Structures are given as C-alpha cells and as structure tokens.
C-alpha cells in the first residue's frame, strides 16, 4: 500500500469576481521511502500541491475536490486537531526561503523544543538533547551553542540545515521540500541537496521535492511529475523522463538545461510565458508555446495516457516520438 495517495485533487482560489482553478485533477501515489520530484515553472501549482496535502492553503485557496489518503487515513475526514498531529510529526515540511521561515524573535532552541513538545509529552531538557542530536546529524558545528542563538545570527545555509533538522526531529514518514535551495547561494545548494538525500535514504523517509530544476530532480528522485498550468502533463520514472522526455514541454525544460548546450552558445529556452490561471487558452494549455501544435491542440484538452514508459498528456505524442526516433537515427 502506498504511503500517500492523491486522487483527482482540485484546488480553487475564490477571487472577487471569479473562481480560478489552481490544481486541476492532480493524481499520484507515493510509496514508503520513495522520492518524488514535482517539476514545473513558477505558478504551475507545485507548491500548492505541497500545501494542499497538509491542508495549509492560504486564503483564498481551498480544496474543491479529490481525495488525499495518507497512511491509510482520509485527510478530509480528519478533525483539525488530528491534522495538527500529522503536521510536523508524520509529514514535515521544508520551506523555500530559510531567511523568513524561522521566527525572528524566538531562539533556535525554542523553535526546536516547541516542535517536540507539540507532539510528545517530553521535558524541555530531554527535548534539547534530541535537538542537539539532530543538529549534529545535519553537520551544524557547536550545536549546544546554537540553541540559544536567534535566526539572524546564522547564515542562510545554516538556517536551512536547522530547518532540515527540525523536519527530522520527530522521524516523519514524509518530507515535503518546497524549493529548499532556491534562496541559497549556488555553492551551498549542492551541499544541502546532498544532505537531504543522505538523510532520506538513511532514515527511509519519503520525499516530495518541489523544484523547477530537472537537473536536481534527476539526482534526487526516483519518480517525477511534470506540471504545467495546474495539471500534470507527464509522469514516470525520473530516469525515463530525463533521458527520453515525451511531452514537448518536458523536452523544452531538458533542452534548457545548461548541460545540454554547447559552451559559448545561447541556452535554448521555451518561447513565451506560462499563461495565468485566469487566462488559460482552450485545448492544451501549452499549445501557444508548442512548436508541434496542430488544430486539435487548440480545441480539445489531451487525455493523460500511458505512452512508452511514462504517462503523458499530449495529442501529438506519437507523431513526436516517431520524428525523434528518426532524428536519432539520422544523427
């Protein structure tokens, strides 16, 4: 049985004049110990997926349909107290920007101890002992001294390590990491990712890694979802998706990676921008930016179907696949 199962999740935002659909029938499964990447541009709905799982959508967002099952429990059927007990304990979250995630007026120790005490009947000194062990696990030097420090006394990379340590405090089954390195220096990004991978593997924790970086996903995860304008457009094993992407959008993302470009040449980018939720085009939402779009793409929304080793939502996937093969032969 899978640890997390999301079925036809729909999230809407009730704006003043209209209701926008931010997530449109998102479905995926996650097994215990499995690592899943969710990839897409800003605004595709990646973060909203993460927050929806913990029922932490900010106003005016709300879950309008679908089912989220975690560890055999239907999240919608739980009381707010039961959901609180899952948050931070069974499912931990790592936020995007460590500079604003920790409370500026509370010490690191306070913010770690309170997390333990919110879920366990534990004394302050015992909680501090656990906190020190976890800080050591994320390679924080002099962890005893950190407890009495405030967030502003620490660097961004150090704060993100502490946030990872807080995520591990209660040995969760699942960690949702929402772009955990986007706000950090490039030099620290790789360290943090490596640490996260190591800890997930050692502790058999499942991971949902939300990112826009396919390169990171290929190193960190076993399976990948590619999202575009609130929909999943391609999903499958990370290896398959990175080596043989089927959807033109995924192909565009991979071609845009610096590794795919010969030094000295311009990076290949996908033309145009993702449409806003209020102005989605009819048919396939990607067709205005797609080189392969035909008439049918402008009219009907493509089904999400199995193709080759992955699932993909594209009308022209078969034709595309053939051309690609032919190109590979010629090349």
């Amino acid at each position, binding site marked *: 049985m899978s640890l997390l199962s999301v079925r036809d999740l729909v999230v809407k935002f009730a704006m003043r004049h209209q209701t926008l659909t931010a997530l449109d029938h998102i479905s995926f499964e996650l097994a215990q110990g499995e690592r899943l990447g969710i990839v897409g541009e800003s605004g595709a709905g990646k973060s909203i997926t993460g927050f929806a799982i*913990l029922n*932490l959508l*900010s106003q005016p967002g709300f879950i309008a349909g679908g089912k989220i099952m975690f560890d055999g429990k239907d999240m919608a059927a739980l009381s707010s107290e039961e959901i*609180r*007990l*899952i*948050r*931070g*304990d069974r499912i*931990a*979250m790592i*936020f995007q*920007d460590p500079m*604003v*995630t*920790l*409370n*500026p*007026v*509370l*010490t690191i120790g306070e913010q770690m101890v*309170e*997390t333990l005490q*919110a*879920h366990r009947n534990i004394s302050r000194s015992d909680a501090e002992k656990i906190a020190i062990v976890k800080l050591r696990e994320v390679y924080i030097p002099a962890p005893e001294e950190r407890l009495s420090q*405030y967030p*502003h006394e620490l660097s961004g990379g150090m704060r993100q390590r502490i946030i990872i340590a*807080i995520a591990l405090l209660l040995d969760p089954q699942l960690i949702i990491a929402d772009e955990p390195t986007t706000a950090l220096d490039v030099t620290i990004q790789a360290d943090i990712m490596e640490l996260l991978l190591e800890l997930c593997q050692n502790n058999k924790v499942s991971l949902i890694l939300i990112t826009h970086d396919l390169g990171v996903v290929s190193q960190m995860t076993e399976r990948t979802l590619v999202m575009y304008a609130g929909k999943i457009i391609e999903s499958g094993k990370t290896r398959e998706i990175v080596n043989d992407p089927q959807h033109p959008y995924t192909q565009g993302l991979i071609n845009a990676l610096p590794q795919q470009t010969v030094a000295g040449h311009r990076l290949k980018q996908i033309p145009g921008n993702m449409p806003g939720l209020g102005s989605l085009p009819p048919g396939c939402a990607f067709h205005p930016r797609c080189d392969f779009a035909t008439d049918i793409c402008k009219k009907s929304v493509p089904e999400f179907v199995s193709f080759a080793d992955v699932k993909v939502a594209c009308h022209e996937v078969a034709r595309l696949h053939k051309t690609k093969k032919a190109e590979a032969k010629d090349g």
Partner: protein
Amino acid sequence: MFAYLVKRIFQAAAVMFVISIISFAIQDNLGDPLRELVGQSVSEEVRNELREEMGLNDSFFVQYTRFAKKAITGDLGTSYFFKEPALTVILKKLPATLELVLGASIIIIGLSIPLGVYTAIRPKAVLSKAIMGLSIVGISIPVFLTAILMIYFFAVEMRLLPSYGRGDVVEVFGYWKTNFATWDGFKHIIMPSIALASIMLPLFIRLIRSEMMETLQSDYVRYAWAKGIKAKRIWFLHALKNTMLPVITVGGVQIGTMVAYTILTETVFQWPGMGFMFLEAVNRVDTPLIVAYLIIVGFIFVVTNTLVDLLYGLVNPTVKLARMGA
C-alpha cells in the same frame, strides 16, 4: 550598550534644549507680567523700575541664558500666583496626573491586546465587526464629549460614580497621594481614566489588529502551522511577539501624548493634576508656571521615548544595542 545609552542621552539633551528655547520664547507673547504682579494702581515709573530690576528689558539671549542657568539647577522660576517655585507647584500636581495616565494605560493595554488579537484572528466574526465599528466611533468622538456624556449618565442619572475631584486619597512614600488605595479614590479615577483612554484605545486596537493580520500571513507563522504547533501558541507567542514590536514604539510616543491630553480630561473632571493647573495658569497669565509646565511635559516625553527605545532593544533580538552605538 553603554555607547548607545550615551548617544541617546545626548540626543535627549538636544531635544530638551530646543524645547526650553521654544517654551521660553512663549513668555514674550503672553502679555505684560507686571500687570498680573502689581495690578493697576502702580505708577508707570515704578513699573519701569521693576521691569529693569527683573531683567525684563534685557535682550532675549541674556534673559534666556539667565533662565537656562537656573533651570539646570532645578529653578524654573517662581509662580506669580502661588508665590512658590514653579517646579514645586508642578511636582505637587504631578502624582494626580501620572495616576490618571496610569489608569488610562491599564485600560488601553488590558483591552487593546485581547481585542486587537481577536479581531485579527476572526476578522469575519460579528463581534469583530462590532468592535471595529465602535472603534471608529471612539476615535471620532472628542474627549470632552465622552467625558460629559459619562458624567451625565453615570454621575447625574444613575448616581453610580462621582463626577469630579480625586476623592479619598491616601499618602504613600510620604509624598505621593494615590487613588488606588481606597474604594472611594478608586471610584473617582474610573471615569477620568476611561475618558482619557477613549481616544488611544481604538487607535491601539486598530494598530494591533493590522500588525497582527500582517504577521499571521508571514512565512514563519505558516511554518509554525506546518510544524503542528497548537493554535494558541502560534497566536499568542509566534504572532503576538512580532506584532508587539512596532506597537511598543508607537505606544511610547502615545504615553507622552497622553500626559498632554490630560488637560482636557482634568478640566472636565476638575481633576487636581498638572493639566488642570496649566489651564488655570494660562487664565492667570502665570508665565513662569506655563513655561515650567511646557518644559516638564517635554521632559516626560523625552524620558519615556528614550526608555521605550531601550526597552525595544531588549524585546527585539535583532537589535543589538552594542552595535547601535557605533
């Protein structure tokens, strides 16, 4: 910390210097002090003699220097009416005013925090809307009207509370007379305190509410929810502590303002404090007393602001007082 303290004290001294010049300059614009001193029957020659003797014919600079030299030693001149040092007169009235400000502050702090937090947490509740509506009414009604309406209802109609004076006060520490020691004294301070609080309370409810709503939207509050922290702890520790940082700064300024506001409240309730005294001094053109009052109020203002800035440094860990001295 020490360097910062010294810097703040120098700033405070500079502000006091400016206040003293302005206060002293007012003297020349309040009419002829001799008329108040000697009355109408004294001849012009004697008046001129007296003027020369009192140094009123000297230049502004000479007069101010003479005044400032004495002021530093605590001599702010002698009240024409009371024939006593102005400072002594004011210090006698000071406890009554400070107790009034204390009463109003207790009401403001005791009500604005819970009401501000409640309206921020439950912005759509009927009670929140009622509080916000009433707060607008509270801001709009002037203090003297609130005071007169309260006297009419609670003193005249219902005969619940006394309408004027301090009532039964008890002397403590040999100098300070307090209203908070007897039931009669306590009854006397209720209405004046409410009247004085009526302007600031709605302002503080609205300030705390808007700061709190902003804080509740912050990433660190959302993160606290994601950690499974209980709602009460998130509201009253995570959010409130951050909310109070800007409120403390504003609050410090307002305490000073409130000392000045007491003029209205004390006049309506015949409260024997320094605000009431000031108004009487103006009527009597008691120039030294007016100047001394302005300087003392300015001094209270400067001291509270300095204290609040120091307090802010203690509450907010991101302000390192040691570094601010640089």
